[in-house]
């Protein structure tokens, strides 16, 4: 994992000093709200319905037990005892006081973290595959490149005021766990015929008001040209992106309007110009310095943590169920990666208490080399667990309420904060997620249904990626009353698709029944071993529409 040098520490120190001064000047009235708002947003501070929210960047979703303990401390000392993991692999605190935020940022800096560029029209936190570096289907570890992008994009003066926010995702694996087709830029690490590593580059993907699957702008970009090529894409977007209309300002609209071929030509010209005016690619030695932070760990550890055999044999079936959906194959024989679901049945997706954070940090030290990953599906991952330790880890997770065996199943729901917190929301997301999770809460039922991803957004901004849910739910405002639209058939992985709205929306009282009708229809019509998504592809929307609307 990347470790800060003296220069990184100095930058943060200066930045916090600057922000502290800005907060003080705002509180004294020297700065107006109009002047202050963009400054606080640059530091990840939003105003929600009842309080400020601080969004902390977790670069490519990897963090240490020390950093997790710091989150716990911040949650306890400055917030209300919990944090919330987001679909951008970040963590948010929902109740910090503005006056405390400079102190919180100082605490974060002490563990090499910050909230810079977690908001505003700049390049945001680069997201990645939660199994990066350990996935069996990986061409190469994408994290060193994610770190290179992080360093390049942080405070990049040319890209500090883009037409709109800009999100990059990178994966090294063939199975896309990072939703690269739905980012402004998606990067997939690939090998060419000569066995050289490079990137397939995708641009113009996105969700929100206009969901678009990204287009391939380059099938193979040699890895050493990553930064100059990204710079060319950014420059073309920065010049031509619509600054006059917020809703048309994302790169996806530019690519859609001009067509990928024309956009590619513009980027190629920019790229040529960049190469002539002084190549911005990272020199090999500098690249190597970053790579040194990501050498694979030596896998000699085994926790040899005590197993409570009596409990284990009594609950073997539960363990087997948890294992079947939470364990992932690992590059190194004898090891596994483990998803830790933050979706307890009836709970709030992505929330974790300060006590759980502290205990989980201890478990990470014992079982997973002190490292934790956050996923864009609002779960956590231990990436380095010895297979022999799995029963003990399961027992320990269970003690702190973090052994819910539902990863990838119907109750593993992504939900945005929605109207319970968010000032932009039309409808609540969390209570709908809670009710669905309770309705399908039994392990047997979830197992029978199989893989099914539900994603619920409280407004068209689509923070919970409802367009790419196998079942997507979008909260809308119907004359001051919450209403929910149902979408089917979305998919965020390499077989990307955008879900289609089924028909008229449902009230808060109806939406869970509507989801159940969809699920029952699937169960009745599926062929042997057919997943929800495959059944939907085969059957189309009609049988689901019929079941939902014809009876009425």
């Amino acid at each position, binding site marked *: 994992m990347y470790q800060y040098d003296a220069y990184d520490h100095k930058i943060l120190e200066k930045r916090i000093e600057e922000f502290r001064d800005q907060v003080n000047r705002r509180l004294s009235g020297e700065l107006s709200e109009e002047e202050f708002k963009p400054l606080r947003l640059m530091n990840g501070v939003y105003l929600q*319905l*009842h309080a400020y929210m601080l969004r902390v960047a977790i670069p490519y979703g990897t963090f240490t037990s020390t950093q997790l303990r710091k989150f716990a401390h911040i949650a306890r000392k400055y917030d209300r005892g919990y944090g919330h993991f987001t679909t951008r692999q970040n963590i948010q605190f929902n109740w910090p006081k503005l006056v405390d935020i400079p102190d919180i940022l100082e605490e974060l800096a002490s563990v090499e973290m910050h909230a810079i560029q977690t908001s505003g029209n700049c390049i945001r936190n680069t997201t990645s595959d939660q199994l990066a570096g350990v996935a069996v289907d990986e061409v190469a570890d994408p994290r060193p490149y994610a770190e290179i992008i992080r360093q390049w994009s942080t405070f990049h003066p040319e890209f500090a005021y883009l037409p709109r926010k800009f999100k990059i995702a990178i994966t090294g694996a063939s199975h896309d766990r990072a939703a690269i087709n739905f980012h402004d830029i998606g990067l997939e690490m690939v090998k060419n015929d000569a066995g050289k590593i490079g990137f397939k580059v995708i641009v113009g993907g996105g969700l929100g008001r206009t969901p678009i699957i990204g287009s391939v702008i380059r099938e193979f970009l040699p890895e050493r040209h990553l930064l100059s090529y990204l710079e060319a894409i950014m420059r073309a977007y920065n010049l031509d992106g619509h600054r006059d209309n917020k809703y048309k300002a994302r790169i996806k609209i530019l690519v859609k309007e001009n067509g990928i071929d024309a956009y590619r030509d513009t980027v190629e010209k920019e790229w040529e110009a960049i190469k002539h005016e002084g190549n911005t690619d990272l020199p090999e030695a500098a690249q190597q310095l970053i790579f040194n932070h990501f050498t694979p760990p030596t896998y000699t550890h085994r926790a040899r943590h005590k197993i409570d055999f009596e409990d284990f044999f009594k609950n073997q079936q539960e363990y087997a169920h948890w294992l079947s959906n939470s364990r992932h194959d690992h590059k190194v024989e004898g090891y596994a990666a483990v998803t830790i679901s933050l979706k307890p049945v009836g709970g709030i997706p992505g929330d974790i208490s300060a006590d759980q954070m502290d205990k989980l940090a201890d478990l990470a030290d014992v079982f997973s080399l002190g490292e934790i990953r956050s996923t864009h599906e609002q779960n956590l991952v231990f990436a380095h667990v010895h297979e022999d330790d799995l029963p003990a880890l399961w027992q320990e997770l269970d003690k702190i309420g973090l052994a819910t065996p539902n990863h990838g199943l119907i109750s593993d729901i992504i939900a945005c904060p929605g*109207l319970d917190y968010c000032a932009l929301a039309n409808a609540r997301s969390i209570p709908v997620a809670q009710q669905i999770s309770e309705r399908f809460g039994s392990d047997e039922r979830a197992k029978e249904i199989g893989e099914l991803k539900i994603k619920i957004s409280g407004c068209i901004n689509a923070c919970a990626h409802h367009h790419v849910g196998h079942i997507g739910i979008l909260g809308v405002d119907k004359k001051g009353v919450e209403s929910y639209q149902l979408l089917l058939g979305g998919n965020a992985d390499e077989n990307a698709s955008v879900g289609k709205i089924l028909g008229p929306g449902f009230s808060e009282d109806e939406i869970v029944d509507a989801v159940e009708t969809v699920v029952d229809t699937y169960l009745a019509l599926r062929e042997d071993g057919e997943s929800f998504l495959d059944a939907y592809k085969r059957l189309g929307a009609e049988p689901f529409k019929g079941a939902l609307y014809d009876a009425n």
Partner: protein
Amino acid sequence: MRARDKNQYIATANQLHDGAVVYFTGKYWSQDIEQSFVTWDSDFLLKLAEETIEKENLISLEAAKIDENDPSISPISMREKIKAAGPSINY
């Protein structure tokens, strides 16, 4: 003369230093919604409230429709209900 809206309104804002929700009483601001100044004229209400917000260190001034059939002051929209009562979930 401005046509009267059939709805009644109150004014809300957030405290600058901590973001907490407050309500306009006509003179000052209170965390107690029941002390709200109620009027049919939302433009007048916002104008009156606006004059105080800078001095009172407040942000995000908004008018909220209330239910005139309710004896206590109760906002109509779910958004304002949640703003008044806090998140509807057990966090």
